[in-house]
């Protein structure tokens, strides 16, 4: 299944590295990355793909990313990609 990881917060050294490292450790394959820095605000969006059986559950992923986000001063969400498809595509 595919999910969208969004990282929002203050720009800092190594955000991309830390988040992608966390993805790799949990068997999340990164398909696409876009990032923008507007003044100090950092916004990174990753599309990741993973096998439900080989990766942790959404509950654990949410918890892990919440902790990581807190550590690096950003807010990280991981959400099933269908939520965006259904809201923004007809």
């Amino acid at each position, binding site marked *: 299944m595919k999910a*969208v990881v969004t990282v929002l917060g203050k720009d800092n050294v190594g955000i991309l590295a830390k988040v992608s490292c966390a993805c790799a450790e949990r068997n999340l394959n990164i398909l696409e990355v*876009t990032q923008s820095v507007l003044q100090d605000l950092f916004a990174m*969006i990753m*599309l990741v793909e993973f096998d439900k059986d080989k990766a942790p559950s959404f509950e654990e992923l949410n918890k892990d990313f919440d902790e990581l986000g807190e550590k690096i001063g950003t807010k990280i969400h*991981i*959400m099933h*990609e269908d*939520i965006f498809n*259904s809201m*923004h595509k007809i």
Partner: protein
Amino acid sequence: MLETKDILETINMIDNEHLDVRTVTMGISLLDCIDPDIDKACENVYNKICRYAAELVPTVEAISREYGIPIINKRIAVTPISMIAAVCQDKDPIKFAYALDRAAETLGVNFIGGYSALVQKGFSAGDYALIESIPRALAETSHVCSSVNIGSTKAGINMDAVKMMGRIVKEAAELTKDNNCAGASKLVVFCNAPEDNPFMAGAFHGVGEADCVINVGVSGPGVVRAALAKIDDKEDLSYVADVVKKTAFKITRMGQLVAQEASKRLCVPFGIVDLSLAPTPAVGDSVAHILEEMGLEICGCHGTTAALALLNDAVKKGGVMASSHVGGLSGAFIPVSEDAGMIAAAEQDAIDITKLEAMTAVCSVGLDMIVVPGDTPAEVISAIIADEAAIGMVNTKTTAVRLIPAVGKKDDECLDFGGLFGYSPIMKLRKGSPKIFIERGGRIPAPLQALKN
């Protein structure tokens, strides 16, 4: 690939604008639980609800985590209990309320609706006893919600039931006067009650429904208000309506996705999505503030009814294309105590009962969560119910009354229910007595609008 701005828009709606799915409600038919032995019937009711809804809460919570959407309430609606209790005559139907409450407790749902009777044209076996037991049922249980349908466009208004409900609403408040009269906040009196409404306190599972269905109620007043806040004061109202429609479409798509997913995982047919703007007392989640964002100084000033009509219509137009089945109440709710903007307007005397009554002619429900003086005579409450039912009957729409008489409180005090129910000052009512009119009883005949065949 998904657009960055779309992704950020969704995240912003959830994080900052209170976007959520308000309720996933499982409707369960209890018709096969009927038994002349009331204890056996109650056991059947408890067992069936617990069997069908065993996975409701964990499944919905899993969906919420996976999609990152807050799903606030998990609820159950059942067949009106008056039908189930009819065969157990001479027995106190309150035992069914205990069984429903116990099931809600076991399953972890916050409300269970359906301690209800449909008496729009007359009372049948079981209806009287059930209605009489409502105040006690609401006082002695925590999760049970009750509703009574006293009128419809097709049947007219059952004024005997209207007369009775004035007294019942008062009793419900009196029996819970030590708990902010909360009993009355769980009792809705309807005209044209929908049979697939997922919202409490008026949810019940209609007899024309399948054995079990999933209905979803969306929300999102904060998102609509935020979208309107971005547009210029000079834009005309066609544009305002367009912005509301586009926003309602997105909100409803999310509700549709949750409904389909819940239906698939629970192996229960998908019923409807209720396209409603349901406010909460949280700041930034108010329907009144949407109206103010359109250009009204305060909700309740002249122009409020027109602004609400525009909003209600645009929400439906935007939402209807986003869902395969739309139903329930669908529109903007205007509860007073559950809406920060309404509470502020009531505190400043900017809104009163007559303006609210006018607004109910163009919104999706009716006089909702309004705190009235504790010494209001029963016939006045009945007359308010009759007025509201007349609006619903003539306009072929659902109207409802949920009044809370503030028993034991002084006129300058307020009732604070806490949580999603909010708080409200006591609202003044009109002068003059409708006693003789209400005492007449009988039926108000169905209007010409009923003769459509």
